[in-house]
């Protein structure tokens, strides 16, 4: 084929394109979709929406992630905060890049809980770095460090698996400070050859930390637990107690039905409603109000904090339903029950805070669990007694 014919052919093909029949065919098939990521697609795999592109390195293709969260990230975060599927909210462990990572960039270590991962990447806008995600089974850095999944062993394994020595020219990795509970800097150095630099607690301090020659100031090194940080944890606190609460409600229903006629369904329903209110007030007080108002409630013992808040809630409830409740013994029964629930759930919140020591919790439990149990027994006794 000579040049001239080729040119003719070209002209004729472009000519075909403007024919009306061809137009119809194109429109019925839709315009050709532009997918710049198409070359990375693999059968059976789905590209993650937070991956922006891939870059070639001496250790193979590495996904570069977006520093900006998208709508679906925020929606999922909302569900997870409500406790829905929170143990399945993960990203694949391994090495990622952000910005324009090169051989001199820092390596930041994190957990594979997607909420943690998102929290980190949104703070790394305009920063070029590598992100090494450890397999923490979808748990945040601190809890995973305590559980032993964010560990020296896992960190060493991931450094080796990702051939980090081929990715960067230096031998430093930045580990979040709260990971120190599970990581020994010395062991990482001897087993993987990388020097651990402990970064700040909060991802939002990373840009300042990097600018400051990888030095964290005192504020960056101390945990906080402010009003918002406490509030955001409460939906999960409430969600966790829903199932046991339903079970408790069933028991309350049965206990409420015991009376002169051995058991009566109508009585169970009539009296049960009040005990459900007392239960709900206890949950609201112990799993929501006490955690949110934590430092403003007197006492350092969480169980006692729960008793104080619970007493206020129980009193309010009893005032509201006083005209409908008959029998003197019912008031102390409902009061004791509601306050006990509040105290127990408040004590439970010790496991969620970043400042309670296991030894302290043990001391508190030894003191208050017998009190809570006794109160529960007295309250049930009074409740059954008042039916006769």
């Amino acid at each position, binding site marked *: 084929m000579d040049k001239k014919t080729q040119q003719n052919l070209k002209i004729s093909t472009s000519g075909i394109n403007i024919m009306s029949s061809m137009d119809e065919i194109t429109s019925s098939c839709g315009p050709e979709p532009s997918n710049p990521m198409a070359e990375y697609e693999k059968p059976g795999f789905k590209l993650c929406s937070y991956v922006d592109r891939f870059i070639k390195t001496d250790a193979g293709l590495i996904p570069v992630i977006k520093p900006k969260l998208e709508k679906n990230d925020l929606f999922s975060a909302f569900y997870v905060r409500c406790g829905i599927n929170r143990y399945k909210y993960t990203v694949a462990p391994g090495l990622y890049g952000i910005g324009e990572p090169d051989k001199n960039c820092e390596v930041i270590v994190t957990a594979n809980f997607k909420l943690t991962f998102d929290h980190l990447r949104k703070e790394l806008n305009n920063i070029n770095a590598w992100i090494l995600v450890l397999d923490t089974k979808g748990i945040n850095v601190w809890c995973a460090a*305590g559980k032993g999944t964010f560990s020296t062993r896992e960190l060493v394994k991931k450094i080796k698996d990702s051939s980090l020595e081929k990715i960067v020219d230096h031998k430093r990795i930045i580990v979040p400070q709260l990971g120190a509970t599970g990581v*020994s800097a010395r062991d990482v150095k001897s087993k993987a050859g990388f020097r651990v630099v402990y970064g700040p*607690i909060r991802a939002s301090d990373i840009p300042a930390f990097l600018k400051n020659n990888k030095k*964290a100031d005192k504020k960056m090194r101390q*945990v*906080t637990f402010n009003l918002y940080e406490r509030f955001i944890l409460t939906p999960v606190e409430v969600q966790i107690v829903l199932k046991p609460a339903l079970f408790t409600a069933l028991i309350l229903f049965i206990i409420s039905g015991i009376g002169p006629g051995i058991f009566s369904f109508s009585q169970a329903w009539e009296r049960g409603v009040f005990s459900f209110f007392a239960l709900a007030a206890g949950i609201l007080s112990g799993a929501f109000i006490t955690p949110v108002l934590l430092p403003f409630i007197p006492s*350092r013992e969480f169980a006692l904090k729960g008793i104080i808040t619970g007493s206020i809630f129980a009193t309010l409830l009893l005032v509201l339903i006083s005209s409908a409740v008959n029998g003197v013994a019912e008031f102390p029964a409902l009061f004791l029950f509601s306050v006990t629930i509040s105290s127990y759930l408040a004590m439970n919140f010790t496991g969620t805070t970043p400042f309670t*020591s*296991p030894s*302290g919790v043990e001391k508190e439990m030894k003191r208050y669990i017998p009190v809570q149990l006794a109160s529960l027994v007295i309250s049930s006794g009074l409740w059954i007694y008042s039916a006769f």
Partner: protein
Amino acid sequence: MKDLRYLDDVSTLVLNEEKCIGCSLCTEVCPRGVFEMRQNKAHIIDFNACMECGACVNNCPSQAISVSPGVG
């Protein structure tokens, strides 16, 4: 964080200052500001802030620190 305190005199934290080699890593990893360096040795300046997380123990190169909470 100074306003959020838990029970006093319960922590099992022990620092053996003789063993301390002055690397200051404990002051770096402690999220509660329990330690401070004085004359190249670690000192406990806020014992009751300790929550026994074990970060200092894990990273102390000379086994100068220990915590031994029960099952908690």
